[in-house]
């Protein structure tokens, strides 16, 4: 079953991100699966999200958490079968939940049959599906991304006695997008999933698709052409479907991936994310305003995707050196918490389990321009385990209740794909869905209410933003506007109560209605509008002219 056509659905989406493996294990093998996920759809519907983004679930040797795909048109046996996926997809659609799946365009696993064929002989028809060279000195201007593990972007293949190109791990050979057959096959892959009914793709590592000598081999015009071609075919054959770009770039560079509305529908606003954390720690609106002011206008049909945390580290690649040092000092003083150029921690531990700050950040996430993404478990304040290696500490099993394996699986605990978080503060006995369901004041209940209020108006997903500049820099205030609807958002970024005077003369005569309690506040006049805001408190006011 497909959901009704709503061309701009992605602008109104509340996306929930998860890995099938982490959510619910239905068959008791210690690994989450599609049947388990399907069982938990009522929970997601109740939470209020309307879109799910699934991390890679394809057959894979899992040397890069599934981003090393060995078969693009199937499901990893640990997570179930293709039929399980179809059943899940239909069940999700029945509940009005759209499904975005992950697609890794740039490379495959070295275990993919295409690569086996390509390396088998230089004459093989699939030889040219990858990028080969007799020497390892081509494309020298391209940087090495995984400096910790890779010495070169070229790897020697002893089978075909030549080098193959890989921008990521050496077990992930890059596909050759100069080859029309590759482009055709990737489109076939997309078509396969679209015909099943998926609603969109999150395309991984898009800046690296094409290589050219003398360049950084990133963000090349030829790469954009590949994207445009995919978009043309998508729009023609599957209108209403969506492409989301993963490109960790500064906003001005990232904007090129929207093209003129003919490339991606959505792209992650990577630089905003660390700056939300920075602003709260600094108790100063500057980082957020600065980055949003640097963000160019995007085409009307395009949309930013914004997030607080995800399956990766809190990346600090798009910040200045001084900002990076500050973030490390404030959020990851213990070096175990650091990985690559970032911090491998979940939202609640980053906020020191301070409910007020967690709420404030979620308030920002839901009210700044863009489509928000909630990372699984953050709605209940799950913790992390920085001792698990790589980013696995933020990928632990979902904590459903305080019983056996947190209600995640009936397997013996030793069989779980990952240990549960079990410390006294964030462990599943303390933090779990069942216990939070019982309280109207739990973080889960609060998050549900937040999503509900967010969804009560399209202004947050589609409206413009206009910053107010009150003298008090601890207060971040802005107006979201769509048509006749105006919402005033006031965030106190500081740990102490603040008084703020807002210049609302444009809204003279309007009555601010606080959106959570539907309480009317004094009418806006011609003089500065005085508000007092508690520590880390935020207000959303609908400015009504009655």
């Amino acid at each position, binding site marked *: 079953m497909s959901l009704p056509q709503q061309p701009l659905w992605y602008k109104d989406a509340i996306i929930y991100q998860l890995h099938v493996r982490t959510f619910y294990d239905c068959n008791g093998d210690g690994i989450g699966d599609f049947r388990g996920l399907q069982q938990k759809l009522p929970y997601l519907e109740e939470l209020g999200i309307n879109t799910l983004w699934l991390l890679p679930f394809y057959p894979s040797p899992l040397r890069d958490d599934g981003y090393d795909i060995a078969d693009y048109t199937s499901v990893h046996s640990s997570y179930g079968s293709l039929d399980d996926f179809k059943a899940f997809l239909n069940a999700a659609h029945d509940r009005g939940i759209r499904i975005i799946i992950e697609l890794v365009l740039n490379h495959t696993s070295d275990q993919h049959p295409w690569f086996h064929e390509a390396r088998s002989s230089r004459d093989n028809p699939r030889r040219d599906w990858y990028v080969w060279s007799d020497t390892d000195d081509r494309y020298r201007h391209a940087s090495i991304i995984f400096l910790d593990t890779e010495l070169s972007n070229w790897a020697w293949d002893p089978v075909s006695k030549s080098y193959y190109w890989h921008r990521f791990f050496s077990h992930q050979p890059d596909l050759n997008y100069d080859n029309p057959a590759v482009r055709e096959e990737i489109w076939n892959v997309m078509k396969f999933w679209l015909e099943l009914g998926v609603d969109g793709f999150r395309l991984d590592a898009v800046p690296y698709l094409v290589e050219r000598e003398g360049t950084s081999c990133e963000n090349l015009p030829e790469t954009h052409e590949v994207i445009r071609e995919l978009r043309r075919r998508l729009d023609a054959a599957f209108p209403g479907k969506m492409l989301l770009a993963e490109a960790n770039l500064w906003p001005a560079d990232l904007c090129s991936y929207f093209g003129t509305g003919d490339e991606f529908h959505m792209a992650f606003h990577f630089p905003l994310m660390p700056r939300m954390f920075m602003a709260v720690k*600094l*108790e100063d609106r*500057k980082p957020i305003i600065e980055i949003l002011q640097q963000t160019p206008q995007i085409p009307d049909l395009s949309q930013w995707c914004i997030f607080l945390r995800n399956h990766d580290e809190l990346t600090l690649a798009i910040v200045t050196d001084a900002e990076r040092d500050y973030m490390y000092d404030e959020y990851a003083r213990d070096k175990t918490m650091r990985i690559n150029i970032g911090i491998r921690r979940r939202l609640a531990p980053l906020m020191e389990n301070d409910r007020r700050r967690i709420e404030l950040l979620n308030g920002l996430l839901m009210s700044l321009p863009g489509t928000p993404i909630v990372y699984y478990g953050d709605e209940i304040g799950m913790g992390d385990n920085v001792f698990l290696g790589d980013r696995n500490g933020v990928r632990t099993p979902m904590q459903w209740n305080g019983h056996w394996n947190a209600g995640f699986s009936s397997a013996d605990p030793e069989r779980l794909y990952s240990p549960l978080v079990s410390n006294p503060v964030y462990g599943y006995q303390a933090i779990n869905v069942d216990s939070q369901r019982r309280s109207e004041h739990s973080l889960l209940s609060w998050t549900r209410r937040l999503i509900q209020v967010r969804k009560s108006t399209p202004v947050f997903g589609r409206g413009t933003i206009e910053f107010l500049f009150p*003298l*008090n820099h601890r207060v971040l205030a802005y107006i979201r506007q769509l048509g006749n609807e105006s919402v005033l958002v006031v965030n106190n970024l500081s740990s*102490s109560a603040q008084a703020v005077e807002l210049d609302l003369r444009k809204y003279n005569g309007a009555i601010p209605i606080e959106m959570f309690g539907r309480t009317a506040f004094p009418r806006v006049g011609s003089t500065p509008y005085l508000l007092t805001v508690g520590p880390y408190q935020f207000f959303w006011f609908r400015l009504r002219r009655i």
Partner: protein
Amino acid sequence: MTQESFLTDDFLRQLISVGEVDLLVGITSNEGGNTANPAVHAAEEAILRNFPRERAVLINLDGGSTGAGFSEGEEPGLILDEVGRSIKSLRTLRRISARSRNVFTVGTSLRTILAAADLSCARACVVIPASAENVVPSWIDSLLRPVYREGYDFVAPLYSRHKFDGLLTRNLLFPMSRTLFGRSVRELVPAEFAFSGRLAARCLAEGSWNDEALQETGELWMAIAALLGDYRCCQTFLGPKVRASSGSSVVSAIRQTVNGLFWSLDSTASIWLNPRQLSRVHTIGPDQQISGEYVRVDRKKLLAIYRSGIEELSQILGSILSPDSYAELSKLSSADETTFHLSNPLWVRVVYEFAASYHHSVLNRDHLVQALVPIYRGRVASFLIRHRVSNFEEIHADIEDLNQQFERQKNWFFNLWNMKGQGES
């Protein structure tokens, strides 16, 4: 009962918006200060470069304002480092103004800054006059850093000076305060200085802000409060000090500083009359430097003023000084330039007698302090004659001897001070 606040509603509104800060920079001006002022730029650069993570506010105290000053919401620009990279604070550098069409006295400025420091919970504050001509960012850093990073409560500046510059400091303020307070700070009336929020709160609470002496020499009163209050004090070397082109006259300098010192002695006597061991105040950088800057002084004119002063003020001086002291000063009037020498022992005795008479209010205190002016001119003339060709070491030895004289006559001064005198009930 409500009491009218000395802070204007507008300034208070700005302060509330600023909220809590780590660093506060007060820039005082009575000439319609503006954002193009070099002191403002130096402060901004110092904060951006050296304290990028700290919450900071620049306060422009704009006396005699014609409406200039910081614009609301105006943000300082970026600065470039040596390799041309832009440097900026992680936070908003807040800039606010307290403006008045009236001239701000030193006391009003200081009180406003102390109140701002108290309300904004500032940990370290620095005061810079907008008229300071050669303030550089490193000055701000040198003054703020000891307070913010090392826990000092009061940081006085040290400058590189010409050997004939700062003579009132060398001949009176420094040696007298060193002797009586037991701690030596060379610049007791600092133009630029830094202090902690802790000291600011105490001074704000304890200052007799309506008193004229405090209004005129608030910084001196604060320095003394720090020295006597067992606060952690230090001095930091800033470099050469360019003399303000429109410097105040000797008369007004003495009126302000000596009056301020004597007034402070009066209000703190219960502390300094108790014997204190002389302790060194930590100095960051060289203790003092003599620069080659040329200072032109007319010795003949100084001597002429001395002679006429001794003669014209004989009656007043007679009620202030002991007969012996006055007799010696009178005798000196007849000496010519080659033999004129107002010795260290005599000078110290005269100063102590003035201080005691001030305490005993033998006559109007303002007139009393003004009567010191001709004698001070004589002392300066004597100093210039004696040290015309002296090097730094010779001057230093002489100042050290002066210090010893102050020390030797201290107990005698204490007795003089404690004697019930005229004007006392």
